[in-house]
């Protein structure tokens, strides 16, 4: 079983995931994708997951690794919350399932999604944002002017699980990332009840340069060590 926060396998780290769980999935344009966790999740006996994630990649740029599209293809997911379902022309399984009525899609603009996750992680009750003011994204929401600028009240997002990808963890769960693999990792790690980090390697406490730690270990509950193509270069 787990030694502290370190689990021997992705399956064991995901053992208590449940039907209908809301899952944050890190990664952007193929970088920083928690591939081993997604692959293990696709084999778990769960259904009706809600995934909050970045879009599916366009044709020709799909990662060779396991991504959200392949998780959706496994039939575990019934809803996706995303700034963009897929890049134009991708014709991904997400769009196919949506057309077939198998997948519900909720669109949240990228900046709003990032800030709602941050608000969830930081314990705020709501934030007034200029993003989307005057567009279809303010419909049904409270708006207010601050110093002459229109702002929309957006509510925090918290999830049951966050699956993130980092380069290295220490046993306390402190994480360092590499390059643009950082993307959603830090903000998603803050915003879930259980955050599981897939890392290339795990070191003893003190083995990371503290000035490089981006996600403090208090936000990370479980760690699995699994190499792969997109944890960072």
């Amino acid at each position: 079983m787990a030694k502290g926060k370190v689990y021997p396998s992705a399956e064991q780290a995901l053992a208590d995931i449940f039907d209908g769980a809301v899952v944050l999935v890190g990664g952007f344009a193929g970088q920083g994708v928690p591939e081993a966790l997604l692959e293990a999740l696709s084999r778990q006996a769960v259904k009706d997951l809600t995934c909050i994630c970045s879009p599916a990649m366009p044709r020709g740029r799909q990662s060779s690794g396991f991504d959200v599209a392949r998780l959706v293809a496994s039939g575990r997911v019934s809803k996706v919350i995303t700034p963009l379902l897929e890049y134009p022309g991708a014709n991904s399984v997400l769009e196919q399932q949506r057309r077939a009525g198998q997948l519900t899609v909720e669109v949240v603009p990228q900046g709003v999604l990032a800030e709602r996750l941050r608000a969830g992680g930081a314990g705020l009750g709501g934030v007034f944002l200029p993003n989307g003011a005057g567009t279809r994204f303010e419909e049904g929401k409270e708006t207010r002017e601050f110093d002459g600028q229109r702002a929309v009240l957006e509510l925090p997002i918290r999830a049951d699980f966050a699956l993130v990808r980092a380069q290295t963890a220490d046993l306390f769960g402190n994480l360092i990332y590499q390059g643009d693999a950082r993307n959603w990792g830090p903000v998603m790690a803050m915003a879930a009840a259980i955050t599981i980090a897939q890392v290339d390697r795990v070191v003893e406490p003190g083995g990371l340069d503290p000035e490089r730690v981006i996600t403090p270990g208090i936000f990370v509950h479980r760690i699995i060590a699994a190499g792969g193509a997109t944890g960072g270069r």
Partner: protein
Amino acid sequence: MPPAQRLSDDQIARRVARELSPGQVVALGFGLPGLVPGVLPERTGVFCLSESGALGYVNAGQTVKLRPGGTPLGLAEAVAMLRGGRVDCAVVQPAQVNAAGDFSHWTTAATTGVFAPGAGLDLAAGPKRVIAMLRHTAEDGSPNIVPELTFPVDGINALHLIITDIAVLSVIPRGLELMEVAPGWRADDVSALTGVPLRRNPDMGEMTFDMEPSRFPSKVFSEARDALHDLSDGATVMIDGFAGPGGMPHCLLVALRDHGARDLTMISNTAGIARITNFGTPPGKLAIDHSILIDSKQIKKAIASYPVSPSASRPSAFELAYRRGEVELELVPQGTLAERLRAGGAGVAAFYTPTGAGTLIAQGKETRVFNGKEYVLEKGLRADFCLIRGHKADTMGNVIYKGTSRNFNSVMAPAARVTVVEVDEVVEPGMLDSEQIVTPGVYISRIVVRPPGFSPYE
């Protein structure tokens, strides 16, 4: 037959690059804008921000590579930069634009699915200037510049300039003005492929593709006082520090005292602690902190979370001045101060926080219950100047800190119009570990090197 060759994607990117100048931050959407970093000359001093949060990057095949002085950001930091007004220019590839400068971002005729903007809204709303970079017509030959958008709008009156494979158009109050045509093209040829009428600028010329040679403006000031030369009476000034001498810009504090600006509003965690001898200080010496500005009667008001001395029998200069009625005080809990600063820097107008609900702090403020918990509405804080202390900076202004001296520095830096950092050492771009950079150079206007051996006591 078309009148002449259309421009290649690379040529369009090079024409877009001519709109950028050193020191600017340009945010780039997915698609054609991704070509822009690759056509910028090395050391051009333009910070390119990707949709995924890489700052100072160039595309390298399927991935991005950081240039010297670049730094990776998380998405929350990247969107804060966009929304906080720190991005000078955004370049997007809309599916459709109209004469009012509205655009529809990702939706295409091929996509019958959900109308989703990706980062389009962020790119439309935050930056000072937005450039559309697109092909003048769709694959079926129909204009991409249309009288009315048929797809949902992502940016309203957002565009300033439209650069296509045959022309450059400026968005003016009365519509679109033809500024430049591609080599070999005439104004009438462009108009024929445009879905809205074009005004022709009297000085209309031919598009060119070379960037003007330019140098990145130095942010390094040799004298602290020069870095504060334009700080005026009545200014709002953020000054870092937690308690004790760590992480405090002592040189800049002394320079501000020497400068003499008055009626200042000071935003800080403490308002200076007791300035007395033998209080953790070397014999016969006084600590340099915010108190020196109280003593010099430059402060009109403090916005602070800890404006008193830790020792009741040894009151701080601010406490004494407050009791004499010489200064005003806005008391802000420490966590709320940090969050208000973060909101100010990140373009968040206001937020509901549980801190202070049911206490004196909530008096006179809106409160609201979400999911059975009470929250207080607090607004973002911004300042004219911000004085912070870093460990090292590169000449582009990227800053790394040392240990706990980071404290309020990193959250204050983005929240002011002019942020001045005092560091131990300045190095060339690329000499700092990019993963260790906490404050991107985008937020730093001026750098002052603390003289070797400078004492935080006087």
